């Protein structure tokens, strides 16, 4: 198992957002995640790559406790956000998810207006005291989501009427609107065409200045383009974790090399 300590991450402890130790996930009798240790840094894009069914999405969903909604899923080990155990009994998953936003594989705007989609999170968390506050929050989120110019004239049109790429950026804006500290993205571009993908990738690069981002992707080119850190998962194991440039040019593990060069996966 790869050990982050010996390979000397350049980041010191205060920059670590998530730190996971000895994480195991079981779906019923299936052992989906085995002994995963990983540190996710702030203001960095971390990419999770690996073949289908390797557990990268499952692990991602552990980070905001989305797996809680699945009955048969059981998690052991230690995952800390800013040093606090997120699986502690005192932690409310609802509050955790407000801090750790999530963007899904398929764009899933609510069947509401564009405005209401973005205002949804701020409203339920009481972030805006007046309608004017809410307007400001919505505009800011849509601007950061790089979709403001396209939708500013039709904020009250349904969000489901946008194109796929616009919908995904709307979902990103929706996640940003609650002011999360970490943004998890589960294959955010797999349902998008190359142009929309480029727009979303550009957006990810901008968001890095404010948030810690974790992105699961099937596209190795995408991981190489957008991420600074890369983790390679295989059959539930974290095989290798390190600087993206190193993983893609000079991997330590033969399995990583095989996957990157297209021999497995």
């Amino acid at each position, binding site marked *: 198992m790869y050990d982050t300590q010996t390979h000397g991450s350049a980041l010191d402890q205060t920059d670590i957002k998530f730190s996971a130790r000895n994480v195991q996930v079981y779906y019923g009798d299936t052992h989906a995640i085995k002994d995963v240790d990983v540190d996710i840094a702030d203001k960095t894009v971390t990419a999770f790559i690996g073949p289908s069914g390797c557990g990268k999405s499952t692990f991602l969903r552990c980070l905001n406790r989305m797996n809680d*909604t699945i009955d048969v899923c059981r998690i052991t080990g230690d995952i800390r956000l800013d040093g606090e155990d997120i699986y502690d009994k005192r932690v409310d998953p609802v509050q955790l*998810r*407000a801090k750790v936003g999530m963007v*899904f594989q398929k764009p899933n705007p*609510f*069947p509401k207006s564009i405005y209401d989609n973005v205002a*949804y999170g701020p409203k*339920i*968390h009481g972030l805006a005291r007046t309608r004017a506050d809410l307007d400001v929050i919505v505009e800011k989120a849509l601007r950061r989501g790089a979709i403001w110019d396209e939708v500013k004239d039709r904020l009250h049109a349904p969000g489901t009427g946008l194109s796929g790429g616009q919908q995904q950026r709307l979902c990103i804006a*929706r996640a940003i609107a609650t002011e999360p500290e970490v943004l998890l993205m589960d294959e955010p571009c797999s349902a998008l065409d190359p142009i929309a993908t480029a727009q979303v990738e550009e957006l990810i690069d901008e968001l890095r200045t404010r948030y810690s981002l974790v992105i699961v992707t099937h596209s190795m080119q995408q991981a190489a383009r957008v991420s600074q850190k890369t983790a390679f998962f295989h059959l539930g194991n974290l095989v290798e974790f390190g600087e993206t440039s190193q993983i893609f040019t000079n991997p330590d593990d033969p399995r990583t090399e095989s996957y990157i060069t297209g021999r497995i996966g």
Partner: protein
Amino acid sequence: MTTLLFGFVLVLALASFLVARSRAGQLAGDTPASLHSRPAYHGFYSLLWVLMAGIGFLIVLTLVPNYLMTNSLLSQIGQALPDSAFIERQLILSDAKALATGRIASQTDPLRQEIAAAYAAKAAFWGWIRIALVVGAALIAAIATQATVSLDWRARNRAENIVRLILAAMATIAILTTIGIVVSLIFETYSFFSKIDWQLHKFLFGTTWSPLSGVQEGHMDADKVGAVPLFAGTLMITFIAMLVAVPVGLFAAIYLSDFAGNRTRAIVKPMLEILAGIPTVVYGFFAAITVAPFFRNTGDAIGVSIASESALVAGLVMGIMIIPFISSLSDDVINSVPQALRDGSFGLGATKAETIRQVVLPAALPGIVSAALLGFSRAVGETMIVVMAAGQGANLTANPLEAVTTVTVQIVMLITGDTEAETAAGPAFTLGFTLFCITLLMNVAAQRLVRKYRETYE
């Protein structure tokens, strides 16, 4: 004889199917792909034609001769007894038919004997014609379709076309039945209104309902056909029923779809649906014998007078009857809201309650409204519970603790009463037609409303 002919057609169709299939198979030999249509389609094509020809002729040659014979024999009776009433001639004819087929007739006389002999002769003649034509048509269809079996015969396309026509015919039957019912309602309503000299306002706004009180004198009293008490009673009971059924049903559906575990759901949902399987007559006497006395006694204890037949009891029990319709349908639509939408909401830090109220329910709204509409139609059309638990007197009141009656109950009373059908049918059909219009309007209005407020998801 009919059964035998029917059996012959079936056996011939099956045989023709097998022969055509095996012949097509042999034609193809070792290269099945050289056949345009699979062998089974050749068989199926043949089977369809034999069935259509045989059964078609069977139906036509059973109905048409019967009609012709009845007409000619009735006119023969009319010539023998010019002064007889139509109903008397029919009686003689049915006696004659009984004599001819060896059953027991009400009386025998020379005329009946004569008609019986004539009937027997005609029946024998048409019987032979029928056998010859049905057997002939089925055989011709079988032989003709056997002759078509060849490598490039498009049996599949033709068989599919025939099936499509059969399906269209079935759909047409359903539509024509609906149109027929509506037209007959309109017709009877028209004749009822003409009997009260087109004083529509007396029906729509009158408050006294006793339509048969003037029948002895041979006319309909326009002052006593006011349907307001009936519609008021119907609406009051329906309103009470919906007040019970919609919240209980909807909350049960939300619990089942989003809170209950799989095992709970697997037990609770079928149990709720059992409620829908209880005959309404059982609900009716449950309401009359158990619920009504309980309410009356409770009312006595706290000093409120509750009639032993009341709108409240009928409405409550009816509401319980409707719960499974609303809960089961709503549960289905709530479940069909994509998990992705729920995940999206949870991912933003929404609680379960926020997710259900702000994301799931708006997306499921159209389905929930149609579930409620279905319940509404059931409540409006329900009769048994109301007959037993709400009373039969047309009593105009806004107090749900008193006895009221509904449109459906009055229709039952009219049709099952001892007044002759022709007189009673007028008010009954008119009530039915008005009820139909109200339900239709409700449906249209609700659909408009839903279209305005619904949130569609892909």
